């Protein structure tokens, strides 16, 4: 068997594929963060908690109301999005003009409260959410058995990421949005309702986190801590990609997932830190991030 640095190439391919799966989550979550930061200038620390909320809503729908996976994939992000809109209207909108720190503290506090509430109600061991019937079983890729559900994660996240990028960069709606961030006063003068756009953007960013949560629910235990375990890495991804860069966060998310996957083969002990090492290096060479523009 061919080997690379003492690792059979088959094992390496397997790890690369799995890296893409975790990269998919990084991409979706950092995309939401990037959209929110780009449009609202808010560092949304609730993102991890919203991801957890999305997963929990799916589980609650299944457990209390017998709502299946597919409706949950739509409904749960919707509820999370509405929750985001309520937060934006009632609290966040007063902070746009202030220092980043205020938005960060508010969203961080909200995240702690959400996680605390769920920990109190359900405990940290979490709830099981089973894989939908359609995705039982695995594909034989030759070098590994890839569970069908993991393959679906990659497909679904790529679709969502592409759609988001397309809407923001290639449509009229996206153009208005970008204009509203660039120069809110002038855009408003053209008759575009800027506060409405900002509100919807925040809601959409939150819904993305909720969507990622529902996608994750069958793959890992639905637990109140699932977001906080992930969110710090996702922030590092955003910093590496460049704050506010849409394409940057998608590509860096997938890329870092793969690098992390490789680290798990060559030196597993460092798998939790490798992303931060890369972040430090990137910040030294390109302080605005790989895809960011210096302001």
């Amino acid at each position, binding site marked *: 068997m061919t080997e690379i640095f003492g690792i059979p190439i088959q094992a390496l391919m397997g*790890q690369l594929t799995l890296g893409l799966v975790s990269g998919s989550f990084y991409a979706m979550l950092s995309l939401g963060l990037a959209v929110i930061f780009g449009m609202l200038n808010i560092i949304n620390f609730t993102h991890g908690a919203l991801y957890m909320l999305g997963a929990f809503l799916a589980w609650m729908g299944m457990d209390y109301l017998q709502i299946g996976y597919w409706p949950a994939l739509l409904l749960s992000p919707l509820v999370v999005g509405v929750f985001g809109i309520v937060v934006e209207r009632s609290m966040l909108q007063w902070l746009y003009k202030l220092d980043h720190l205020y938005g960060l503290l508010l969203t961080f506090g909200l995240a702690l409260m959400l996680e605390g509430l769920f920990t109190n109600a359900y405990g*940290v*061991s979490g*709830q*099981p959410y089973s894989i939908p019937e359609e995705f039982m079983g695995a594909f034989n890729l030759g070098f590994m058995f890839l569970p069908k559900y993991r393959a679906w994660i990659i497909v679904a996240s790529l679709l969502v990421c592409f759609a988001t990028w397309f809407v923001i960069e290639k449509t009229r709606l996206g153009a208005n949005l970008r204009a509203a961030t660039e120069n809110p006063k002038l855009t408003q003068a053209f008759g575009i309702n800027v506060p409405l756009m900002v509100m919807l953007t925040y809601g959409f960013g939150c819904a993305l986190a909720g969507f990622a949560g529902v996608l994750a629910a069958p793959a890992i235990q639905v637990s109140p*801590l699932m977001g906080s375990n992930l969110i710090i890495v996702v922030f590092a991804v955003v910093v590496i990609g460049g704050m506010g860069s849409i394409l940057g966060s998608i590509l860096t998310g997938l890329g870092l997932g793969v690098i992390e*996957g490789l680290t798990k083969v060559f030196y597993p002990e460092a798998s939790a830190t490798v992303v931060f090492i890369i972040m430090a290096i990137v910040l030294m060479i390109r302080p605005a991030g790989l895809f960011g523009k210096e302001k």
Partner: protein
Amino acid sequence: MQRKLLSIALAALLIPAANFAYAQAKPAAMKISGDTVKIGVLTDMSGVYSDLGGQGSVTAAQMAIDDYVAQYKPKFKVEMVYADHQNKADVGSNKAREWYDTQGVDMITDVLNSGVALAVAKVTQEKNRIMINTGAASTRLTNEDCSPNTVHYVYDTYALANGPGKAVTKAGGDTWFFLTADYAFGASLEKDTTDAVKANGGKVIGSVKHPLNASDFSSFLLQAQASKAKVVGLANAGGDTINSIKAANEFGLTKNQTIVGLLTTIIDIHALGLPTTQGMMFTEGYYWNLNDDTRAWSRKFFAKHKKMPSMLHAGTYSAVTTYLKAVQAAGTDEAGPVMKKLKELPINDSFAKNGKIRADGRMVHDMYLVQVKKPAESKEPWDYYNIKAVIPGDEAFQPMALSRCPLVKK
């Protein structure tokens, strides 16, 4: 002036003498600092291990205090404080120091997480108080890092490793691969299981270390799968074990390999459900559905906590009760005499039958090798285990002859 000075000097000399005379005259009186015995529950209140100990341990300790006061009506007051150590050794040892220095805490219990436990053990010895550890797993607490002030009460990695290490290896699972949490506890559990596997003719063909609270276990499990080992040992705990088992099912490991959770508790089984966990074998220190005693106590606990007790919860109840009995017997809350009594008195309650605390601080009691029931076998909620074997205390725990504890004279 001179006379005044003289009288002060005299008084200063006389006061200790008078105290001494008083103490001599009333030898039977209890010498409890501040007339209060204060127990501290130091645990993980919100992190990965908070279902294992956490609020449940606080509830169990309070139940033990209430039951003891109601039954024995002691002359001293008993109080409890609790705190969240956040699984951080520095937070834990600072809290312990504060409790000992300013709050008059006499005994600290639970202290799950081996990293925190080792740090708190040091502070406890320095301040000459007592830690009865019901939560941590590392055997270092009664070996290299043993202390005259530490009791290790419920389980340790040796006891966890020994049951499945022996049973599974003898049943044909003679090649092992480990998934190990990358800190003191994981290393200790892997080492002790390796010893048990080797002693029974098996061999270990590899292991992979994963960070605590890893968000995804699939790539580690893929490595375990590629190793072709017959048995995959999970040397981790709490949420990490849960997510490992879940991913092992998804990636089809369970078809060709046996998954052995080395620290799996009823809390994990409850979280995952029987369909995912059926057939798994591991060692437990307690099971609520063992006999009438355990059922009676566990149902009382369930009424307060809404969950059946883990071995940590039952152990904390037993530890607090045993400690209060030792204080009563010693007639003081001073660490030395209480520890002497702790090591003399046999322990008989819902948690342990003829339990005994050895010179190295190890509490020796029976352990249980359990197998998770099939969903159809389970008759009621929380009815999860078939008891495959009762491992007598002397076999379950590391024999004194192998002890690396300097306190043990050989």
